[in-house]
């Protein structure tokens, strides 16, 4: 099976390409990338004229909810949402039921994902058994089954000794530790960012310090242990500064930020009159934090954009703010939000945006995808920079409708994905 993607503007930052290139895929892998490729006999041709072609986009932080919480999302609906949102790869977090803390669960996820074929799924295994924060999991077994990283996401690794051992042990398998950085004593029963708006609304706050104290601790450990440490959904200015400083010192530290922390602030809780769709963890932070994150995107401190796609059932979110679960969906809004609110106003260039969704996460997770070179997987995403869209949760492929971006009018959208040389067709 051969596929030629012809006539588009290829943006592949890792390969240093931004221009008119054709991509030929044979047997699922890239055969050649060149200014003009004549279609070989029996080759399917995708006309990408007027479109941007990128290596298949990667969302390194999603919750697919299966096994266990199929009423929120399944691997099928979650990967369909990924494809609709322009993604060919996702990394899914371990907080399922049962927790992905052993090989059988990892294998189940991999098998189930392969059955549907909408996107590649890279499981993230738990750091601790049952995510209880006590005993290490069989990381080697899970890595052999396809786990690309380890994380107790949703719960921080509070036990300092466990974190130290995890950073050491994960090195045997070349896998990074992904931390949901939060000092649980400081965050307490908080439900939004601690600052002027929590004071006005009388809601218990989660101070930025809760994240910063944890990252500072982990970086001290990392300097001793070596290995790789990644801060998930980094949300504060000082935390970004810690990561910047860590990188300067040569530590193996990386970080991701989410579109919602880049585009919204804690004031949204007041502006939406306590909408539970602006409740997530870490919470939306201050305007100063938001500005710092935008600067970190531009200056290279941030390694990846990730959605923290967290579908919940409508009934779970239709409750009082304090009682609602944290999290919003993001797979089907991230690309348009980025193109319209980051690239179009010039916060970052298109190349940098693509890098944050391809080479950046691929480097962190050790994926073969993320760039188009002969022999690499034939995964591509097609973007239409001028397509106008209005975010309408009713059209989501995800089971989750919990988004604060409903009604946003955005310019720029994903229009298709190609997975291993096959255009993905959603039912």
């Amino acid at each position, binding site marked *: 099976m051969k596929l030629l993607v012809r006539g588009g503007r290829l943006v592949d930052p890792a390969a240093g390409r931004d221009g008119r290139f054709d991509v030929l895929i044979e047997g699922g892998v890239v055969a050649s990338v060149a200014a003009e490729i004549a279609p070989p006999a029996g080759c399917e041709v995708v006309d990408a004229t007027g479109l941007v072609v990128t290596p298949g986009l990667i969302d390194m932080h999603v919750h697919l909810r299966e096994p266990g919480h199929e009423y929120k999302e399944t691997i099928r609906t979650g990967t369909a949402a990924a494809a609709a949102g322009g993604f060919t790869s996702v990394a899914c977090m371990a907080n399922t039921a049962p927790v992905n803390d052993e090989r059988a669960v990892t294998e189940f996820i991999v098998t189930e994902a392969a059955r549907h074929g909408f996107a590649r799924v890279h499981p993230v295994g738990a750091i601790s058994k049952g995510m209880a924060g006590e005993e290490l999991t069989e990381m080697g077994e899970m890595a052999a089954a396809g786990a690309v990283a380890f994380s107790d996401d949703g719960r921080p690794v509070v036990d300092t000794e466990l974190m130290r051992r995890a950073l050491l042990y994960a090195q045997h398998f070349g896998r990074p530790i992904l931390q949901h950085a939060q000092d649980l004593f400081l965050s307490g029963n908080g439900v939004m960012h*601690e600052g002027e708006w929590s004071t*006005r*609304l*009388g*809601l218990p706050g989660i101070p930025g310090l809760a994240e910063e104290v944890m990252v500072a601790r982990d970086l001290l450990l990392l300097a001793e242990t070596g290995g790789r440490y990644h801060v998930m959904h980094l949300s504060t200015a000082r935390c970004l500064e810690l990561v910047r400083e860590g990188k300067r010192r040569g530590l193996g530290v990386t970080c991701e930020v989410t579109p919602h922390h880049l585009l919204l602030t804690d004031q949204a809780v007041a502006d939406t009159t*306590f909408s539970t769709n602006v409740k997530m963890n870490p919470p939306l932070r201050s305007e100063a934090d938001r500005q710092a994150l935008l600067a970190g995107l531009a200056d290279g401190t941030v390694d990846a954009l990730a959605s923290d796609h967290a579908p919940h059932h409508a009934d779970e979110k239709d*409750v009082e*703010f304090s009682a609602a679960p944290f999290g919003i969906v993001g797979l089907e809004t991230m690309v348009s939000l980025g193109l319209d609110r980051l690239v179009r106003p010039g916060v970052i260039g298109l190349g940098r945006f693509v890098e944050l969704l391809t080479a950046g996460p691929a480097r962190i997770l050790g994926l073969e995808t993320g760039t188009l070179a002969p022999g690499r997987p034939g995964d591509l995403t097609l973007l239409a920079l001028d397509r106008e869209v209005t975010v309408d949760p009713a059209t989501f492929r995800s089971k989750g409708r919990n988004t604060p971006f409903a009604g946003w009018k955005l310019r720029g959208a994903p229009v298709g994905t190609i997975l291993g040389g096959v255009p993905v067709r959603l039912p």
Partner: protein
Amino acid sequence: MNAESWHRKDLLGIADLSPEEIRLILDTAESFREVAERPIKKVPTLRGKTVINLFFESSTRTRSSFEIAEKRLSADNMNFSTSGSALEKGESLVDTALNLEAMSPDLVVIRHRAPGVPHLLAARLRSGVINAGDGAHEHPTQALLDAFTIRRHKGRLDGLTVTIVGDIEHSRVVRSNIHLLTKMGSRVRVAGPRTMLPPALEALGVEVHTELEPAIAGADVVMMLRIQLERMNRKLFPSSREYFQRFALTRERLGAAREDAIVMHPGPMNRGVEIASDVADGPQSVILEQVAAGVAVRMAVLYLLSGVREEEG
């Protein structure tokens, strides 16, 4: 502004109100005040109207104040509290509210420990919603009755210095009072232990103090907040003894305020913790007047939100 120009369906917080609306509520309350002095303390104003008091958090004072206000207006009322209700059986808040709505009440008075719950219900219910306290967010009728009491004593609500002392972080009373008093042109000082002051208070337009004496100096009104003793386990303050030593209103400390200063407390008081008994019972205390004012103010709010005059007109 007069009653005819009142069009709000709900009273959710002071933050939303204009100074004219606040004045209208207080003026309306003045006209209801004398009902309490009649031998038969009842007017037919809300006859045939149904009010549901939905209290998800224990309350004696506020709930009985609303109940009396409703009865004096001849409304049919019903009390619904958490114990023994569907909520204990796992029903969601929204379902409970929709079930109540199906019984066609005209007004729902709600108290809940979570900020924003009255707003959530107001968006769903046809009936008017009155916030009787949502967590540490707002308690609008408390601020209105405080203002009513202050205005009766000082003759105005502008140009005054009002000092509020206590656990500022966890108090809904303080937030509603800050909004109301600053909107009406008074100066508000808040004071308390550093562990009980939330961040960025200055953004609300108040002066922040961490010592009692300078906070009280020259004040027209000193309002003491209830210290919740159960918070002693929560790292906010070590003992009621130490709290009393630094932050309780004693006769000596009250001397720093204006000679004609009044002393207020939203109740229930902890004598010997935040306020000394001789101050609570002293000549400057208006604490029981606040309770009386509560009924008049709540009658005014119920009347304005019920929309009865529109039907009459």
